[in-house]
């Protein structure tokens, strides 16, 4: 874990509460979100010099609502100029001083904001961008950097997302009871996607993307505090911790990938491993089971093995069987096949892969070829394994994966080319 900058950390934590207070008071999510960004920027530039104000939350709300009312006033003036008759008057409370609007429902508001940002009318890319800005308190420039796109592109994505939310008539209020499970699942999925974006980052120009994993963990932690009894939220947090724990061991200094079986486990983040295992153990005993919990349980079994050879593959296999029932998808089948191979022998795993050739979601995915190559190698078919590693290397669009797969293929040739 990296040491956190105090002010920045504070601002990130307060951002969703400031936004919630403004949206609750003024009702205009789009304009409120911009005003909060400006207030955060003002704090970033002013606080290091002037010191953190006595009530940072109150300060931010005051500055943000001043920006927002300025914006609303000039918008109103514009409309008045344009309209032939100024037919409506503005309610006084719209321009009321905002010092009193800070209600401290804080944490529930954060969840409501998350649900709004993960609105089903948005594409995943937009849900991610908006969540990072409105709830995570990141600037557009930071998000753009993390996704390796120009700031203008990311600004468009965020502004489009806000327009969509407005057009969909979404309001800043908790979802109706019957929609809650689905909307919460959408939030968890977005947090999971943010985590994955960060986790796959390695070294060099992508290193700042790692911050996304930390941000996803931070936001998921917040949600676990709001929904302490939700097993899937806890499961997701445990999964992130147990996965992120491997980060120091998963790449070499040159950025090349180290497979799980070859990782130096002494380099795993012990604090994350311990927290993840404790969390998933506690959760499994008391909450209804769900896919994130099962994935976390699998990660925990791997984490509990001091060496790769000590992995309890029987337990991993049982968990994949369970996961396949709870959330069947071809990527689960791939991992399930590896576990089956480790317990029942490579032919059992290979047999599970065969039907995937006809599944268009995965038939041309490099992971299918990579797993088949691995299992063929276990079965002693080096020629077949080599061909599959090369196929996988051609199919992947990731440079480090391609390098890894080509090295695997080269290992299986006599001259090592």
């Amino acid at each position: 874990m990296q040491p956190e900058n105090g002010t920045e950390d504070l601002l990130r934590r307060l951002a969703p509460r400031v936004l919630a207070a403004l949206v609750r008071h003024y009702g205009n999510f789009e304009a409120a979100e911009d005003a909060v960004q400006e207030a955060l920027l003002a704090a970033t530039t002013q606080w290091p010099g002037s010191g953190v104000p006595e009530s940072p939350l109150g300060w931010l709300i005051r500055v943000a609502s001043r920006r927002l009312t300025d914006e609303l006033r000039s918008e109103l003036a514009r409309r008045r100029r344009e309209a032939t008759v100024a037919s409506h008057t503005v309610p006084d409370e719209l321009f009321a001083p905002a010092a009193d609007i800070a209600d401290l429902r804080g944490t529930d508001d954060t969840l409501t904001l998350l649900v709004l940002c993960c609105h089903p009318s948005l594409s995943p890319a937009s849900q991610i961008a908006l969540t990072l800005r409105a709830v995570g308190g990141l600037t557009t420039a930071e998000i753009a950097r993390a996704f390796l796109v120009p700031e203008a592109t990311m600004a468009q994505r965020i502004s489009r997302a806000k327009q969509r939310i407005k057009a969909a008539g979404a309001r800043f209020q908790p979802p109706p009871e019957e929609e809650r499970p689905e909307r919460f699942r959408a939030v968890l999925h977005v947090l999971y996607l943010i985590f994955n974006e960060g986790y796959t980052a390695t070294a060099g120009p992508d290193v700042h993307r790692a911050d996304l994993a930390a941000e996803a963990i931070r936001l998921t932690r917040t949600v676990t505090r709001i929904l302490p009894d939700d097993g899937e939220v806890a499961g997701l947090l445990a999964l992130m911790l147990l996965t992120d724990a491997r980060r120091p061991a998963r790449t070499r200094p040159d950025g090349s990938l180290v497979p799980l079986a070859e990782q130096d486990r002494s380099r795993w983040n012990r604090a994350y491993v311990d927290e993840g295992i404790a969390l998933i153990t506690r959760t499994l005993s008391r909450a209804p089971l769900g896919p994130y919990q099962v994935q976390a349980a699998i990660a925990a079994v791997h984490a509990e093995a001091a060496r790769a050879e000590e992995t309890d593959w029987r337990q991993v296999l049982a968990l994949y069987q369970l996961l396949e029932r709870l959330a069947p998808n071809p990527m689960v089948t791939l991992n399930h096949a590896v576990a089956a191979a480790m317990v029942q022998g490579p032919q059992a795993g290979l047999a599970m892969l065969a039907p995937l050739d006809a599944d268009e979601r995965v038939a041309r995915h490099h992971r299918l070829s990579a797993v088949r190559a691995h299992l063929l190698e276990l079965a002693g078919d080096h020629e077949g394994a080599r061909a599959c590693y090369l196929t996988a290397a051609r199919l992947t669009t990731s440079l480090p994966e391609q390098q890894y797969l080509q090295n695997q293929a080269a290992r299986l040739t006599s001259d090592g080319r």
Partner: protein
Amino acid sequence: MKYLLLIHSNPENWGHPTFLRTAAALAMSSEERAELSREFETLLTEIVESGELVTAEALPDPAQTRTVRVRDGVPAVTDGPFVEAKEQFAGYFVVDCESLERATEIAARFPDTRFGGAVEVRALMERSGQEM
């Protein structure tokens, strides 16, 4: 996922947008040509507003191309493109979109694809990866 859209076109006289300078487009009425331009503008606006457009550049006349080869340690510079073809590389777009299907859909809306040219869709490789 980011994709590179490579635009290949065969205009009569080099100029942008290239599709308007193909023989077939030059033979069209000014209304039809204006309609083509509008379609293209609509596509551009759409991918800018959706936050999918990352960058785009147009290229000058291929006659201005230099191709460099090194033979026996000596650079050999020739005028003209590396690949001799009727259709020439006219420009490129980088889009960041949900799927290959979406990138293909965007590519299919470049008018060049209807005027003897083509748009090649190539994924950009990522520098990050999953451990196996």
